[in-house]
């Protein structure tokens, strides 16, 4: 595992990192994380997840564990066990990565009474397909058992407000699946997603029927990986014959010495052929040397790649680097050990 990739990225003096945050009165003082990007009509649109909890994430010797949950705990309100997510839509300056404007997405038109403890649309990927902005994420509050399904949240962008005007819950190709999440949109293929990476499964969503159909699958694993490869960023065109995405994997410990859960997250770059077969999977890395990170934001604008990632669900960062630099990192620094 390659530690602290951001340090390597910043060795190129043309690279840039910017903390992303919103004034605390607007976010109820919770964490900002897991942002996604969509460059459309020369504007870099961004969706930022705001969570009401703070993650308590012990590192090193893990000396200062939480009272009831050990080294990794959601610090929600004592009297409210729910984990709430709201989302902000904003515009990022593509040169400076500074958040120039933002609005909380008003979901009141489509909201129903939540039935489970994870409330809200989580880890939203923003796309613009057929001139409509969709925030696409997983929602787990519509059933009493926390069943997760991908939902399309149609957005109407106003000058000083952003409204959710329609919400469509997509049934899984496997209707018995408990939780569908982290489907990766293929930016230039409307309504197409990578559902699984290793082996590959691509689905196409039909909004009229609210179903997803498998249109490509491969039964052969690219590599034998130590952990299951899970979804991440959207797929963006990398060169004329390939796509790039960032995926994640999780080393999850269900019960440690004291019976508490623990986890470490790693990421990998995946290069895809035009036919959606996998061309290359990099070795794993973390961004800023911590256990819990999550990346769903990737965009390419001219000669630059822009990456957004969340740090322990408590903060959010934007990175910008030259495509050449990233290419060099992917193929050399992150070359898998054979």
């Amino acid at each position, binding site marked *: 595992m390659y530690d602290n990739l951001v340090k390597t990225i910043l060795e190129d003096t043309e690279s840039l990192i910017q903390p992303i*945050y919103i004034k605390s009165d607007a976010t109820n003082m919770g964490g900002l994380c897991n942002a996604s990007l969509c460059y459309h009509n020369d504007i870099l649109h961004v969706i930022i997840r705001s969570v009401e909890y703070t993650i308590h994430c012990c590192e090193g010797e893990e000396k200062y564990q939480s*009272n009831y949950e050990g080294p990794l705990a959601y610090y929600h309100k004592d009297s409210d066990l729910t984990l709430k997510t709201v989302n902000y839509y904003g515009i990022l300056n593509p040169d400076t990565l500074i958040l120039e404007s933002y609005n909380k997405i008003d979901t009141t038109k489509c909201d129903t009474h939540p039935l489970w403890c994870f409330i809200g649309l989580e880890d939203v990927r923003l796309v613009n397909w057929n001139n409509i902005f969709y925030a696409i994420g997983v929602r787990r509050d519509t059933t009493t058992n926390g069943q997760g399904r991908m939902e399309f949240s149609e957005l109407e962008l106003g000058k000083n407000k952003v409204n959710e005007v329609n919400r469509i819950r997509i049934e899984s190709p496997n209707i018995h699946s408990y939780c569908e999440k982290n489907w990766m949109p293929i930016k230039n293929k409307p309504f197409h997603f990578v559902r699984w990476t290793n082996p590959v499964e691509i689905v196409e969503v039909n909004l009229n029927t609210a179903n997803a159909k498998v249109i490509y699958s491969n039964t052969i694993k690219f590599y034998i990986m130590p952990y299951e490869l899970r979804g991440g960023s959207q797929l963006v065109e990398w060169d004329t014959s390939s796509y790039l995405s960032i995926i994640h994997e999780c080393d999850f410990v269900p019960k440690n010495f004291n019976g508490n859960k623990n986890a470490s997250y790693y990421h990998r770059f995946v290069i895809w052929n035009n036919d959606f077969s996998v061309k290359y999977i990099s070795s794993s890395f973390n961004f800023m040397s911590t256990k819990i990170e999550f990346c769903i934001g990737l965009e390419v604008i001219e000669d630059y790649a822009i990456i957004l990632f969340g740090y322990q*669900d408590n*903060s959010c960062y934007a990175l910008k680097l030259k495509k050449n630099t990233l290419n060099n990192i992917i193929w050399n620094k992150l070359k898998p050990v054979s």
Partner: protein
Amino acid sequence: MEQIKTCLLKYIDEPNNPKYNFDLAYSYEEEQQYSAAYSFYLRCAEFTNNNILACESLIRASLCLNKQTGRDSKELYLIKQALCASPNSPEPYYIASLYFSYRSTNEVERRWWLDSYMYASLGINILETTEVSNFIHSVGYSKVNLYYQKALSAIKIGKLSEAFEIFDNLLLLTNDINLINLFISNIYQLIEPLNNIVNSISYKKYNDYNRFIASQTSNEKNIQDTNII
């Protein structure tokens, strides 16, 4: 924002450096980004070998939770962790005392004044018996504040004469006219109830008994002195 960026770049250069984690956390806290600050305070505590820095980080992490409201049990747990990290620092005792006094009311289930008094007393004991370096950034602690905290909680648990004595002594510890006025006002408030106690039958019995013991001791001493002569 600029301060966060400056601290962030140092952190990226050495992510396990406790001081860089602390500085980044503090810069986030200054911008009221309490969740972000929390991450880096906790990392600082985990990575440092300096018990006082660990203690300060954990206390500041507890203050970040405090700002987010509604997380009292987690806040207290961090304060206790901070006390364990540096039991010779007076600051966590002061914060613990505040934690309980802020939340105490006259309702039966919320009368935590003894906890507040206890932590203030423990902190004063540390203050009077050991010498450790202070926190990098103020958490509102001062010698005067710690004594004041003890006096206030002492009143609530009925130790009126002790509170009177602390306020009286506090007058010698400061030149701040506002504080002096505050202490005097507290003393005035205590005079009447103290008089009530002094006039009570119970207090008179207690006083008579003590006078009797004192006179007995004095007689015994006189006898001993006579024998020596």
